[in-house]
């Protein structure tokens, strides 16, 4: 049975069908919550809130988007509600991430060459740098980045989940990507300097 058929059955009250949809998406939603919050407790809240809201609103799903995109939109709202009180970092404009831009992290006019990052940092440390950087930045950047590259949604699907234009979505994804690149570059540079 394909997803559309499962959704139709679920909408008519078939719990078995809905259970299969849960199975398909629970790990993805949990991971999204974990990446954004950096802890299991909040990830669990986001997961539950998302699926309970999905039950409440299942009859309102009209199939204009895929079920996954609809579910991510609910998750994004759950994240927003949870994080409303938490201050997270606004990111600087795109041009300031470029070499020679105001306050670009590399400072220098030339970018640092990474070579093979795994020679400088173990995967575990790499993961920590990435996870911390994502958890620190405002959700408006981390959410689209995670949906795009961890959940492999298309830009259009991310835009639909977040109720944004494609252009705005692309720009936010790029800012998150540039922020991660800059942070990784700083860490690699430090490590390379320690070696000399």
């Amino acid at each position: 049975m394909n997803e559309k058929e499962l959704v139709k059955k679920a909408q008519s009250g078939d719990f078995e069908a809905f259970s299969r949809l849960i199975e398909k998406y629970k790990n993805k939603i949990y991971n999204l919550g974990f990446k954004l919050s950096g802890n299991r407790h909040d990830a669990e809240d986001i997961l539950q809130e998302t699926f309970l809201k999905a039950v409440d609103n299942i009859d309102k799903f009209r199939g204009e988007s895929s079920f996954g995109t609809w579910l991510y939109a609910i998750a994004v709202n759950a994240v927003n509600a949870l994080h409303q009180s938490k201050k997270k970092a606004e990111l600087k404009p795109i041009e300031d991430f470029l070499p020679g831009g105001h306050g670009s992290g590399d400072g220098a006019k030339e970018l640092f060459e990474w070579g093979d990052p795994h020679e400088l940092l173990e995967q575990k440390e790499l993961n920590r740098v990435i996870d911390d950087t994502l958890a620190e930045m405002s959700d408006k950047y981390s959410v689209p980045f995670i949906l795009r590259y961890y959940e492999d949604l298309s830009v259009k699907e991310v835009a639909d989940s977040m109720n944004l234009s494609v252009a705005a979505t692309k720009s936010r994804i790029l800012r998150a990507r540039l922020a991660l690149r800059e942070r990784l570059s700083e860490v690699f540079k430090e490590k390379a300097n320690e070696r000399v």
Partner: protein
Amino acid sequence: MSECKKHIQSIADYIDGELGPELCSEIEEHLKGCKNCRLMVDTLRQTVILCKDGEREELPESISSKLNEAIKRRWEKKFGKA
């Protein structure tokens, strides 16, 4: 420099394979003469690869079964006994 600024979004699209052929060759032309943008391509590409290489957090069994119970209760409230 302003050239590079102008190109940065296209460079990201280029890495992701989402750039039309015309813009693609324009970017490739720029890359030939601009080391920083070449490094930008390399490091932005690696950034996403390194992210994807990270482990995914396993959903703990205890959370999963709590979730199923909560959903079932909510479902029965809405639709009656499953």
